[in-house]
């Protein structure tokens, strides 16, 4: 991604009274990005009507007195597009979101998911360079939300373009985005691909915000991180207290731990069967608690067990 960015945010900030909703931030979106912004607060506000961007609103914002056809065609009509072209593009767009049969209905006659598709169609028909989606699926139930997420992925693959998607649902961001911006208290915590966000979180907040994480207290001195009474490894960064993080599903137990880079011994304190996985809670020798998710296992509370993980699966953040 060395190309010129399609959108560049530079020193963007937003305050409501004395409340700083967004601290000054710099952010680039590139053509074809599907960018998800999670956490924090609302960052996308209405752009001037002249900009080649369109928005899908939280709660849709459909015009209740216009038919679906009129809703979808509104932007084109305002722009003075000839009638025949409006009709043709509305037809195509309704076909794309599979809502042709509802063209002459009014929004209140549609279900939430159907209204959501119309809101999407109404924005997409403008062929925006950037499509802004402000928590578009927040009002939908889980099943419908998943179906719409699939739909949006399909649409993005089909028509391309840059989507900027605000959500509080981490799983949604991971599923949809090619690039994720994690925000907390109006500040950008990390920007990266879903893989980077999940496997290489840069802050404590990001570590816990996307998925579960185990942490071990450690100390860094002269670019070397050491866990008292256990092991040490090289990691560049300022001196001071740090945390070493590991995802529960990266933790190995028993014989598998023997081949790991880092090892502890501990005692199983809890076993929870989760269907696809079994989750163990292990008390380590130094008194800290670790969660491990395994595909299977017949360990029981009280069992003594080795706990281990690979260097590649850990990360270091400041507390």
């Amino acid at each position, binding site marked *: 991604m060395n190309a010129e960015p399609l959108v560049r945010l530079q020193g963007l900030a937003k305050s409501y009274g004395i409340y700083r909703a967004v601290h000054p931030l710099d952010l680039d979106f590139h053509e074809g990005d599907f960018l998800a912004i999670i956490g924090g607060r609302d960052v996308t506000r209405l752009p001037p009507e002249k900009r080649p961007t369109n928005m899908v*609103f939280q709660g849709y914002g459909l*015009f209740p007195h216009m038919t679906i056809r009129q809703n979808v065609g509104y932007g084109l009509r305002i722009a003075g597009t000839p009638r025949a072209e409006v009709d043709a593009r509305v037809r195509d767009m309704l076909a794309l979101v599979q809502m042709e049969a509802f063209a002459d209905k009014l929004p209140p006659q549609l279900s939430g998911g159907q209204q959501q598709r119309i809101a999407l169609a109404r*924005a997409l028909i403008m062929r925006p360079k950037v499509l802004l989606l402000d928590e578009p699926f927040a009002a939908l139930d889980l099943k419908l939300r998943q179906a719409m997420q699939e739909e949006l992925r399909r649409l993005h693959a089909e028509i391309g373009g840059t989507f900027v998607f605000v959500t509080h649902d981490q799983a949604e961001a991971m599923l949809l985005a090619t690039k994720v911006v994690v925000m907390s208290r109006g500040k950008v915590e990390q920007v990266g691909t879903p893989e980077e966000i999940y496997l290489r979180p840069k802050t404590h907040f990001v570590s816990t915000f996307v998925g579960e994480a185990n942490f071990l207290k450690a100390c860094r001195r002269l670019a070397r991180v050491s866990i008292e009474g256990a092991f040490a490894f090289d990691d560049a960064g300022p001196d001071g207290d740090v945390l070493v993080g590991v995802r529960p599903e990266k933790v190995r137990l028993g014989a598998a731990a023997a081949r790991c880079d880092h090892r502890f011994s501990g005692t199983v304190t809890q076993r929870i069967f989760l269907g696809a996985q079994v989750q163990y809670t292990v008390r380590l020798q130094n008194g800290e608690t670790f969660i491990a998710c395994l595909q299977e296992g017949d360990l029981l509370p009280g069992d003594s067990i080795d706990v281990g993980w690979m260097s590649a699966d850990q990360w270091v953040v400041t507390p």
Partner: protein
Amino acid sequence: MSDGAPLSLKRDGALLLPAAAVLAGLFIGPMLYFLVVSFFKVSLFKIVPGFDLGNYAKVVGSYGPPILFTMGIGFLIASVTTVLAFIVAHLIWTRGRRFSGILLAATLLTLFGGYLVKIYAWRTLLGRDGIVNNTLVGLGIVREPIEALLYSPVAVVLVLVSYLLPFAILPLYGALRSIEEKTIEAARDLGASPWAAVRDAVLPRCVPALVTAFALCFLVTAGDYVTPRMVGGTRTMMMGNFIESQFGLRMNVPLGAAMTYLTITASIAVIAFVWLALKTVLRPK
């Protein structure tokens, strides 16, 4: 009803009976009585029953201009009031923020000043020795006080618009409150100018309220005979004044009733026209 089910005429219809009785006894009954009477005749100050279209012929023949004038000034006053009321309600709705309650209360507060009090207040403002004329003369803008400020149709318009404004604001504000602001943002996002967003996303949803506000103002004006007498001068005669004189001084109730029914018919026609016009103009394309 405590179960939240909507009212049904079959089950809950009995609840309507008291209101229906009041309406029938105090409104529909008298109106029907006068409808019948409008076909009677008067002979030597006595009402003679019969079926005679002469009253209507007389009204059409002799009172055409006052009916047209009444409809015209009613249309003007109701239109001006409705437009102003929409602007005020829209401002309170969009810009009012946390002051919207106070602003709305302020508009209602003016209702504490009675109808006649307001008329006298306007007379004090507009009269020959009124505040406006004194100021204009004092500033040397005019040499002589302007007589036409008071005792003219202009004064009738001013008085009635100022009096009716709060009544028109209420239904419009209620209608605006039910509109999601998001739909306006959506219209703007799709390229609508601020005015186009109001035209396409707001006004069509206010048609019932606009018609209500217009009808309210129009009917009060069309039936008014106090304001024209107090500030309208001798030449501003509206149908209310003629009807009142038939029921009063001239003791010709049948002619007064015929005047009433023609005025009502014309009023319904005007309101229906406004309703259709608004619906047609604001229909989404």
